[in-house]
């Protein structure tokens, strides 16, 4: 004879079992001492747990809940639509980037060296340079001291016809 499970006994004590099952448990418990003892223990536990009573709710929460919900609803209604909030964020970000670029540009203008300063500094370096490899192209130009870059004009070359006569 299969015994009744603890879970079935708990359901039986709680009144959850449908009638056919309840009748089967009653029949078995009447004939089975161990199951009867377990049912009694579960039933006693069930009863003892009933000794703990809680005080009922003393206030009506409906007004408080309605008031808070109304305020939340009003706040949600007054808030801009999601696309408006996103557009506002993007505009603020774009404005911040523009301001940063402008400030960076101004800072660059204040701290960058002038072109004349660059040329005089370069000539000074050249004058002091003793390294023959460091020859800027400017010395090879027309009219320079080395002269080998002077242009060879076409009319300076005697033609073969002139030489042979």
């Amino acid at each position, binding site marked *: 004879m299969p015994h009744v499970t*603890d*879970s079935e006994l*708990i*359901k039986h004590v*709680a009144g*959850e079992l449908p009638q056919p099952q309840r009748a089967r448990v009653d029949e078995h418990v009447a004939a089975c001492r161990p199951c009867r003892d377990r049912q009694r*223990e*579960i039933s*006693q*536990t*069930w*009863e*003892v*747990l*009933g*000794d*703990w*009573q*809680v*005080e*009922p*709710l003393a*206030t*009506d*929460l*409906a*007004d*408080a*809940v*309605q008031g*808070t*919900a*109304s305020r*939340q*609803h009003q706040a949600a209604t007054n808030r801009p639509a999601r696309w408006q909030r996103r557009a506002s964020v993007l505009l603020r970000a774009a404005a911040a980037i523009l301001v940063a670029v402008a400030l960076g540009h101004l800072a660059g203008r204040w701290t960058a060296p002038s072109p004349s300063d660059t040329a005089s500094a370069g000539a000074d370096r050249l004058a002091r340079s003793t390294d023959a490899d460091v020859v800027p192209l400017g010395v090879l130009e027309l009219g320079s001291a080395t002269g080998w870059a002077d242009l060879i004009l076409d009319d300076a070359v005697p033609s073969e016809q002139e030489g042979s006569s």
Partner: protein
Amino acid sequence: MDVSADASDDADLMRAVADSDMAALGELVRRHEKRAFALACRLLTRPDAAEDVTQEAFLHVYRAARRYRPEARFTTWLYRIVVNLCLDVKRRTKRAPGELPAHGPAAEAPTDCDRLEAADRAQRVRRAVDDLPGRQRTAVVLHRYMQLSHRDIAEVTGWSVSAVESCLVRAYARLRQELRDLMEN
């Protein structure tokens, strides 16, 4: 009690709440606040915290009204919200083992032996339930005090029915051991 009529009324009220009908919200609160409070009170053992949780639970109901599907009973949904809020409170306010906050406002002490004994028994039972592991405590409170079936408990908690049964068997066995002397008396 016509459960199906109540359930359809709750569904109708929820549809109205989804349209921001505050009167419907108030009606839902009045219908279910006592049981929601009782559930929170037993899980937290502190009426002041239970009242806060109950109020917050109905505000959750309002904010989530558009997501509510009438396939689930409103009470199942509400109790799940209450249980989750209570678990959050429990996690935030862990207390030392054996320490139990006062139950309710400073009430007058019982004046005769029977009432003293009743108060002592209530305190013992409250402590025994509160000392259960979290899942067992939740299962016992929903089963013994909220009178939910195993299937209803499974819907509220999201556990399987077999997990609920297993939880209850262990919980009642533990309570039986803890409160054996009260049963013998």
